[in-house]
């Protein structure tokens, strides 16, 4: 994509606004949704849970990375890689904590109860983040500060490009994880036959913790990258910006298929961008949202398994 743009930006000028710009910004936005969606899919796949706190785990991680980067609170002023590491660890820790304190006691509860509980976790995290960071936006950790690409009609920052790459790599890696590794198959097995898996010696508890740990890590990656592209992070910021599109991405892509999150995210991002660019606000406000809602509804009605999902 970028290669095309680099070689022929001038010729594309007439089309740029209506087509290229939405595609590129949609790709970047969509990758962010996809990154969050990846964590959502993982948790849905392993336990039939929609985790409303996923984005906020990301915010929390990004906040901690920012603390470490800026030397706030207990942190000394740390270099960027260390700050990012702290952010990632925060995400993993949060995932494990949520699993232990909220999810595990609700193992036998109806899934909807668990989902409402994750919404509670979301609010709790916003409040805790607020207590720690205050409501003011805090500048986020920047992994890179340069521009990946700049032409007369669009600009892609390094962080933006990084998001796309990371999402693609993670989507492939996690798909491999589930199909090729023992742990991955164990997670699937637990989700489908908890009792039987317990009988063959797989610890349901440990698998659940592992899943949430990974989900926390994915959330943290999404959080740090997204706050990087936006520039700031504050309590609730990721939830506000990306949670619902991420859900939509996950469902569109097929909530049980991991690469689906990638495809879904990109589709969602592009749909949103196209609608926003090409449907003026005074004609239809929130056009991006409307188009997304219609798309989501259509997919759920016509192909409930999503674009890449398998009928199970």
């Amino acid at each position: 994509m970028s290669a095309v743009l680099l070689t022929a930006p001038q010729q594309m000028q007439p089309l740029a606004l209506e087509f290229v710009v939405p595609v590129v910004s949609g790709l970047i936005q969509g990758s962010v949704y996809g990154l969050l969606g990846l964590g959502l899919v993982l948790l849905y796949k392993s336990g039939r849970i929609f985790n409303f706190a996923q984005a906020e785990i990301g915010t929390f991680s990004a906040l901690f990375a920012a603390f470490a980067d800026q030397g706030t609170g207990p942190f000394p002023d740390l270099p960027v890689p260390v700050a990012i590491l702290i952010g990632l660890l925060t995400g993993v820790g949060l995932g494990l904590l949520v699993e232990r304190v909220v999810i595990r006691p609700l193992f036998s509860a109806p899934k909807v109860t668990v989902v409402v509980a994750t919404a509670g976790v979301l609010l709790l995290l916003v409040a805790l983040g607020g207590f720690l960071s205050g409501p003011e936006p805090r500048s986020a950790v920047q992994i890179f500060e340069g521009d990946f690409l700049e032409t007369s009609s669009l600009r892609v920052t390094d962080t933006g490009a990084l998001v796309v790459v990371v999402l693609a790599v993670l989507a492939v890696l996690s798909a491999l994880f589930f199909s090729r590794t023992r742990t991955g198959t164990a997670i699937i097995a637990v989700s489908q036959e908890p009792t039987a898996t317990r009988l063959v010696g797989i610890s349901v508890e440990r698998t659940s913790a592992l899943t949430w740990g990974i989900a926390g890590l994915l959330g943290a990656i999404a959080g740090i990258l997204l706050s990087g592209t936006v520039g700031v992070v504050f309590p609730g910021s990721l939830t506000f910006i990306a949670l619902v599109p991420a859900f939509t991405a996950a469902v569109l892509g097929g909530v049980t298929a991991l690469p689906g999150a990638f495809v879904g995210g990109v589709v969602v991002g592009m749909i949103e961008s196209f609608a926003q660019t090409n449907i003026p606000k005074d004609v239809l406000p929130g056009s991006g949202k409307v188009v997304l809602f219609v798309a989501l509804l259509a997919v759920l009605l016509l192909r409930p398994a999503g674009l890449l999902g398998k009928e199970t």
Partner: protein
Amino acid sequence: MNLRRSRGFTIAILASALLTAACGLKPEVKDALQQNPGLAGGSGGQVAVDTDGDGVVDAFTTDPAAGGVLPDGTTPGTTDGTTGGTTGGTTGGTTGGTTGGTTGGTTGGTTGGTTGGTTGGSAGGPTAPVKGQGDTTGIDFASKTITVVIHGPLTGAGVPQESFRTGGPKYWEKSGPKGGFRLLFGDWKVKVEAVDDKYNAQDALRACNSAAKSAFAIFGGAGTDQIQACAQSQVLRRANVPYLSSGVTESGLGKLPNYFAGSMTYKQQSPLVIRAAKEKGFMNKKWAIVITGTPNFADARDSIAAELIKNGAKGKAGAFNKDNDIILTEKAPRDCLTVGNQLRSGGYESVYFLGQPLFFGQCVNQYPQATYTGPGPSFGIQSVADLACRGGAGGFKGFYLHPSPDKAMAQKGAAGAPAFTDDIEAGIWGGMQQLEQAFNLIKGPVNRQSFIAALAKAGTPGGVLQPAAYNGSTRFGGTGAYLNQITCSGTSGKIQTVATYKK
């Protein structure tokens, strides 16, 4: 007998009890309502003559346009008030004050009179607040305190600012003699309470309506939608609560009897934007207008578009086009990527940007190449500038019209003030200064009616802010604005006042 049945029974009892109670209480409540004086006349921007609960004629009859005669026999004079105010504003008031002596007409006037008379020394001649006269809500006679409420986004999705909380007390409590309380006429104090409007019109209105019961006057800190919502509040209009704010939209605010804009509205600033563009050399470029698509910005949008066309501005495809070169946005920052790329692919070089501050900073990040201009953000320009400089790789450049000048200049204009932490504190300082000047305009006893009447026919002489002048026909009294240049030094924004524009 099972529970459900008993519940139903209970509910029936409760319901009938409630209804009886509600009906029984209604007359009392109505009485209470009637005792609450100060119903505003609905039109004309004038304060209606009113009677209080006892049916006694109020302490004054007000018809500012006609220059009515106050009960104490003095003729209210505009010049009088203004000069009194000017001196009063900075020195704290040494002249005047004798007129307070004998407010005729009602009981309680004597108390007021004595206080005013003995203490003397109030600037421009207001008498101390008097019980039983006009609407003195928010005035505590025991502790001699007048309560004023500032609403602003202490929290919320904008750029939430602690300075909205600290700005008021800084003026009233820390900049008086020896860094203590600043005293009004007759040693009265002003207590400022900051309430959170969460950068949201609904919450602002909620906050204002509840403040109307406890505060004498309300000051709108920031946010067009919030200010408009509050100013238009049914409760505020009805109780005739003085409402002051910086100038924002004109939509729906022009005819409100209790509203005063202390600085120029966005619409009024449009010609000044053109002037700045000409003087600073970004007029002959390709122009775009990026504006949040709310009706409250429609007047700003239409006026700047008209000005641009009148001055022969260029747009993306030749002449500035009223439709094509305006980008309407949502409020959500996630639009910024799109907006940035739209600006980029349109090749715009000068951008008039009016929207939520946080949004502004983020959008500029996406496309720092243009010169940004516009009125406002009416607050928080420093954080906006920081945000814009951080992501824009230092390339951001902007000229913004703003009610208050840069920090250094504001500090100079505010003698005795502790150091301002940011432009919000400076702006609030200026607003509070206006408020004090307004208090000092009052002839006779202080109440909501007399406050509004006095301010409506005069104005405030300014200080940190430019002067404001009201007359019978307008409440948009701003007479000037500061042109603040934003540049980046590293990743932090630098704000410098480069010009002072008069209307």
